């Protein structure tokens, strides 16, 4: 169900992604995350096209934490911020975080490679149905993503929308 990947640049860490739909307690989950009771990033899966997109965001978050360049308060908020094409933090949370009336959530965890992620800690808190994380695109809102990342039809001539999204995430600090 879940997807776990290692980070070549940070071999001590691994990233695990869990995807849920028909979630009934997004408000409660959001509150728990704000209080630090969930050690993970709660992401709106409508804004994600592929697990690679979130994996890149997690890699970037660990990187900025390592080099002391975080722009937000925690590793998990940094993952959400890394997804955003702009440097506006509150905008990033609004678009890529979850809202109280959402019905789906993608949870991204960064954990020690040697240990499995704490399953019970996360799964027991979500009142919803877990689905395979690689089915992420079934929940994506394609039109919204294209609009937010400003992907033109011209750009789609030389690559996918995912490619366009990834380039903007990577280039954010240099443009």
């Amino acid at each position, binding site marked *: 169900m879940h997807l776990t990947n290692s980070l070549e640049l940070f071999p001590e860490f691994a990233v695990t992604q869990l995807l849920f739909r028909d979630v009934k307690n997004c408000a409660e989950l959001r509150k728990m995350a704000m209080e630090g009771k969930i050690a993970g990033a709660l992401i709106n899966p409508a804004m994600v096209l592929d697990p*690679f997109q979130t994996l890149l965001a997690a890699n970037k978050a660990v990187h900025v934490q390592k080099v002391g360049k975080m722009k937000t308060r925690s590793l998990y908020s940094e993952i959400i911020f890394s997804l955003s094409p702009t440097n506006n933090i509150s905008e990033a949370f609004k678009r890529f975080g979850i809202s109280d009336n959402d019905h789906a959530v993608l949870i991204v965890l960064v954990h020690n490679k040697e240990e499995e992620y704490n399953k019970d800690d996360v799964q027991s808190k979500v009142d919803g149905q877990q689905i395979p994380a690689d089915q992420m695109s079934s929940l994506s809102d394609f039109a919204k993503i294209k609009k937010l990342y400003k992907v033109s039809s011209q750009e789609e*001539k*030389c690559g996918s929308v995912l490619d366009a999204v*990834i*380039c903007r995430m990577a*280039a954010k600090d240099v443009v």
Partner: protein
Amino acid sequence: MAEADGVSVRSVLPCLREAELIKQGAEARVYRVRFLGRSAIVKERFPKRYRHPALDEKLTRRRVAQEVRSILRCRKAGIAAPVVYFVDLSSNCIFLEEITESITTREHIAAARASGRSVESLHDLAENMGRILAKMHDEDVIHGDLTTSNMLLKTESSGELTLMLIDFGLSFVSALPEDKGVDLYVLEKAFLSTHPNTETLFQKLLHSYTGASKKAPAVIKKLDEVRLRGRKRSMVG
């Protein structure tokens, strides 16, 4: 060359120490790696010892930033260039999509010539190069290092060939015909010295460049001026 600079050939990133080095240049090392489940190319710009450290860091960083910006600018305009996965400004590394099933245009042309194929068989390629460069210049991207090594030819699953631009480290944004003319002049020099007896091929390239952009006449005029200057200088020097 890095050794001559007294710079360690070992990368600052531990994951690159075991990686396959595919090119050691004067300013950058290029590696092939696995990155988050994909095959990727890492371009690492290393310090040059003969430059003042603070200046060096600034220049290096600017090149990394320019490379990423120009790739994005090209892609937004529909000009094929590798996807940027990740930029590490603390080690001046860019992680790029690896263009698989590809060879450099240089290798392609050299192979065609070596196998005795006619120059005419390469006309379509030259025309394609001209069109893509015209499009790039219409976006005001000046590549800064146009050579046939910095254009990759990818064989798509359909069998079609896609021309992709790479190596934007010396690129910048300018609308001046002079800058575009110099860009083409650099390519002409590199092209004709790498591929002898291909003058007609380069003519084809310029012809399609001219047909593909409204701004081309002013650029070609500058190209002619730059050529003349180049000749005068070589007569004096």
